[in-house]
C-alpha cells in the first residue's frame, strides 16, 4: 500500500508540474530535464513549478508527521501544529523579526520560526498540563486556540501598521507555496530532515507512549525523555514548514486520522504513511487551488482549511469519549 501511495504522490507531483495557468504537456516536462532549451515552458517548469511541487510535498509531509507525533504526545485527537498554536507562534516571530528587527533571508527566518514554534508550543503545553487531571484534550485545545488568537492578532497588527509588509501579508496570514524558489527549500531541508529522522526513530517509543503515561512508565520507558525528543521533532518540522510556506492549517489534523484508519495504530507505519499522504494532500490541494479562482490563485492554506474543517468538526463531535 505504501507503494501505491508513493505512486500516487509521484503522479500528483507530475500533474502539479504540468497543469496550471499555462498547461504544459507531460512530454515537455520530461524534456525540460533532459534537453533544457531555455523556452518559456521549460523556464516555468524549472523555476516555478518544480520548486513549488517539491515545497508542497515536503511541507505536507512535515506537517502531517508533526501532527501525528503531537496527537500521541497530548493524547488529543485534534492536536496539530495549527490548532496548538505552534504555527501561529512561528509566523508571529517571523513577521516581528522582519518588521521590527529588519531580519531577512531564509536562514535567519528558519531560526526565528523555530524559536517562535518552541516558545508558543512551550506555553501551550505548559498551560494544557496544569491542573489536577494533567493534560486533557479540552484544556490543551483551548490553550492552543487562545495562543493562536493572540499571535494572529499581533501579527495582523504588525502587518497593518507596517506598510512595507503589506504586500507579503497574505503569505503570513494563511500560508502558500506559490512563488518560492529552490534555494528556500534547500535552506530548510536539513531541519526538516533532522525532525523527520527523530520522529521516525521515536516511532517505536511512541507506540508505548500511546498506551498512557502510567503504562509507559511501568514498562520502563523514560516518558519525559521521549516527550522532549518528540517536542523537538515537532518544533523542527512545524517551524521549518512555516518558514518556507507560512501557516498552513489542518494538514496535521486530517492526515494522521486517515492513516490510522488505513493502517491501524502502529506508529512505525503511521509516521511514514503520514509523510507520504501529507505530501500527497498538500500537492493535490495546491493543484486544486489553481483552479478555484482562475486565473488567480487561492493560497493553499485556504484550501486545506476548507477541506479540513468538516473533518475537524467530525472529530470534535466524535471525541469526548475519553
Amino acid at each position, binding site marked *: 500500500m505504501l507503494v501505491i501511495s508513493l505512486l500516487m504522490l509521484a503522479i500528483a507531483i507530475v500533474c502539479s508540474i504540468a497543469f496550471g495557468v499555462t498547461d504544459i504537456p507531460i512530454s515537455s516536462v520530461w524534456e525540460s530535464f533532459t534537453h533544457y532549451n531555455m523556452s518559456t515552458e521549460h523556464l516555468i517548469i524549472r523555476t516555478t513549478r518544480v520548486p513549488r511541487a517539491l515545497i508542497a510535498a515536503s511541507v505536507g509531509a512535515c506537517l502531517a508527521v508533526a501532527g501525528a507525533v503531537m496527537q500521541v504526545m497530548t493524547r488529543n485527537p485534534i492536536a496539530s501544529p495549527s490548532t496548538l498554536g505552534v504555527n501561529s507562534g512561528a509566523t508571529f516571530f517571523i513577521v516581528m523579526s522582519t518588521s521590527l528587527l529588519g531580519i531577512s533571508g531564509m536562514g535567519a527566518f528558519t531560526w526565528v520560526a523555530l524559536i517562535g514554534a518552541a516558545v508558543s508550543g512551550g506555553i501551550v503545553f505548559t498551560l494544557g498540563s*496544569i491542573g489536577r487531571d494533567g493534560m*486533557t484534550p479540552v484544556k490543551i485545545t483551548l490553550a492552543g486556540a487562545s495562543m493562536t488568537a*493572540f499571535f494572529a492578532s*499581533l501579527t495582523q*497588527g504588525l502587518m*497593518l501598521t507596517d506598510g512595507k509588509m503589506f504586500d507579503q501579508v*497574505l503569505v503570513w496570514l494563511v500560508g502558500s507555496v506559490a512563488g518560492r524558489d529552490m534555494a528556500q527549500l534547500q535552506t530548510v531541508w536539513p531541519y526538516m530532515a533532522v525532525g523527520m529522522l527523530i520522529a521516525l526513530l521515536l516511532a517505536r517509543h511512541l507506540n508505548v507512549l500511546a498506551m498512557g503515561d502510567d503504562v509507559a512508565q511501568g514498562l520502563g520507558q523514560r516518558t519525559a525523555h521521549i516527550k522532549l525528543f518528540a517536542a523537538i521533532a515537532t518544533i523542527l518540522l512545524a517551524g521549518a514548514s512555516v518558514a518556507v510556506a507560512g501557516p498552513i492549517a489542518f494538514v496535521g489534523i486530517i492526515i494522521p486520522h486517515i492513516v490510522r484508519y488505513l493502517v491501524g495504530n502502529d506508529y512505525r507505519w503511521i509516521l511514514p504513511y503520514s509523510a507520504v499522504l501529507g505530501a500527497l494532500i498538500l500537492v493535490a490541494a495546491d493543484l486544486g487551488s489553481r483552479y478555484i479562482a482562475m486565473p488567480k490563485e487561492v493560497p493553499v492554506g485556504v484550501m486545506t482549511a476548507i477541506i479540513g474543517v468538516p473533518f475537524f468538526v467530525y472529530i470534535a463531535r466524535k*471525541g469526548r469519549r475519553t
Partner: protein
Amino acid sequence: MSKYRSLRSANSKFSILIEKRTLWVTLILFILCIVVMLISTGIGSLYISPLGVIKAIFGRGEPMEQVVVEKLRLPRIVIATLIGASLAVAGAILQGVIRNPLASPDVTGITEGASLGAVLFMFIFGGTVSIHWMPLAAIGGALLMAALLYILSWKHGVEPLRLILVGIGLSAAVKAISYMFIISGPLILAQRSLVFMSGSIYGTSWDKDVLTLLPWVAILLPITWLQARNVNIQALGDDVASGAGASVQKQRLFLIFLSVALAGSAVAIGGAIAFIGLMAPHMARKLVGSSFGSVLPVSALLGALILLVADLAARTVFLPRDVPAGVLTAAIGAPFFIYLLYRNRNRY
C-alpha cells in the same frame, strides 16, 4: 435597611433584583467612563484640555478645537462606547446561557461569522447599497454561524465543550473563506477588510457609523435588560430551569438571538474586536455577583471602558502608527483567557 430592592411589573413578566452595591458600582463606572471619554477626546496630535472638550461639546469651544472634537474625535469615542457595551453584553448573555465561563462571541466564532457577512457585503455590494445595511449583513452572518454552530454541536442536546470545540473549527473555516475573498479582490478592499477583521474604529463618522449602530444598541440593550430574569433562570441549568416553569429551549433561542444581534451589529461597525465579550462579563461578576440584572449594566459599562482605553492606547502609544484597537484588546484578552483557563484548570 435591606441590601436589595426588587423592581417588578404588575404581572411579574419582568422582575429584577437590584443590589445597592450594584447601584454604586454602576454609578462609579459611569463617572469613570465619562472621565475617560473626556480625557480621550482631548488627547491626540492636538491636545485639548478636558474643559476645552466640554466647551466644544456644548458648541462654545474655540473654532479649531470645535472642529476636531465634533468631527474627528467625538464620533470615534461614542462608537467605542457603543461597540464595547454591545460586545460585552453579547458575551454576558452567552456565558449565562451556555453556562460556560469561556464562552464569548469570539471564542465560539460568532464574531468571525459576522465579519464574513460584512466582508461579503463590502465585496458584493461595495458602493452600490447604502452602508446602513451593513449591520444586517453582519447580523445575518452571525446568525447563520450561530445556527450552524448549534446544529453541528447538537448530539442529544448541546454540550458546552463540544460547542466551543466546534466553534473553534468553524471560525477557522470562516476566516479562511474571508481571506479567500480578500485575496481575490482588489488591493484597496483587501487592506480595508483586513483592518476590519482585526477590529478597528479608525476614522468613524457621525452619519455613517454612529447613526447606523445607535438604533440597534438602543433597541437591543433594553430588551436584553427586560430578559434579565430569563437569563438568571437559564444559568441554573436546564433541569432546574424547566422545573421552575421556564420554557427553556424557546427562551434560550431568543436570548442567543439577542446576543448574536448585538455582536453582529457591533462587528458591522467596528470589525472583529476580540475578547471584550469574554473579559467584561467576568470582571462584572467579580464586582457585583452573578445576578444578570446587575451584570448587564456593569459589563456594558466595563466593555465600553475597556474599548475606550484600548483605542486611546492604540492611537497614541504607537504614534505615528494607528494600531487597530482589536489588536490591543486581543493582546490583553488572550492572557486573560489563559488566566481563566488556569482558574478553571480542574474543571475540564
